[in-house]
């Protein structure tokens, strides 16, 4: 599957979310779709590999405090 095809599918999903009143999810999908704009001819698998590599170096991992917060939420202590 090419990234361009997945982009069309996600576009349709975003439209569906917008129509059902879930504007935030639609906005997130639109933003995510924009990643595929310049890479439409790449396969999804190739793009996923690229994203994995880039995300590992560029995306800031969650801090310890945010992780502790999430654990707190899990155990019911907000």
């Amino acid at each position, binding site marked *: *599957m090419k990234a361009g*095809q*997945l982009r069309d*599918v*996600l576009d349709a*999903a975003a439209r569906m*979310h917008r129509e059902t009143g879930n504007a*935030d*999810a639609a*906005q*997130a*999908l639109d*933003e*995510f779709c*924009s*990643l595929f704009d*310049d*890479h439409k001819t790449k*396969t*999804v*698998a190739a*793009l*996923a*590999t*690229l*994203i*994995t*590599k*880039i*995300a*590992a*170096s*560029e*995306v*800031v991992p*969650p801090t310890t405090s*945010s*992780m502790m917060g*999430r654990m707190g939420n899990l155990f019911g202590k907000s």
Partner: protein
Amino acid sequence: MVRIADLNLILDHLQQLYLAAGAKTPANDLKTLGDALRPHANVPVSQFVSAVRDGLAKQTATRAKNRTKGSALRKSEPPDAAVIATHVGSLRASGTDNISFGNALESLKAQKSLTLSEVAEIARQYADTVTKYKSKAAALGDISKAFVRQARFENKLR
């Protein structure tokens, strides 16, 4: 604020939809994408997208730069016409004499500084071919074959 985990949920639903329809390939692609996103479940989508977009742009720029460098390097070294002419001359001068041809061929093989394009050009001029050689060995092989062909032809005439 929508996080990657929420986006993953949407991708999971799409994957299930594809699986239900029997479309295994796109379902697997969505799974691969979902797996790539999973370690960043807690990151907001906008932050993730901007970081990955920057990374992709950097990578594209680096690739374009390397491609330009490579082609510039190739263009800066044209085949040495004088060296080609010398080798073709010594190969032709040997005529059908096996020993002098062997010496000429050995000196050609020994000159390691010759590039593939130069050896290929020597082979084309000596063997009178238009072959696009993929390796030096193939070009040298054609030179030997051309010599044998020429020697046999001259023997027939005797």
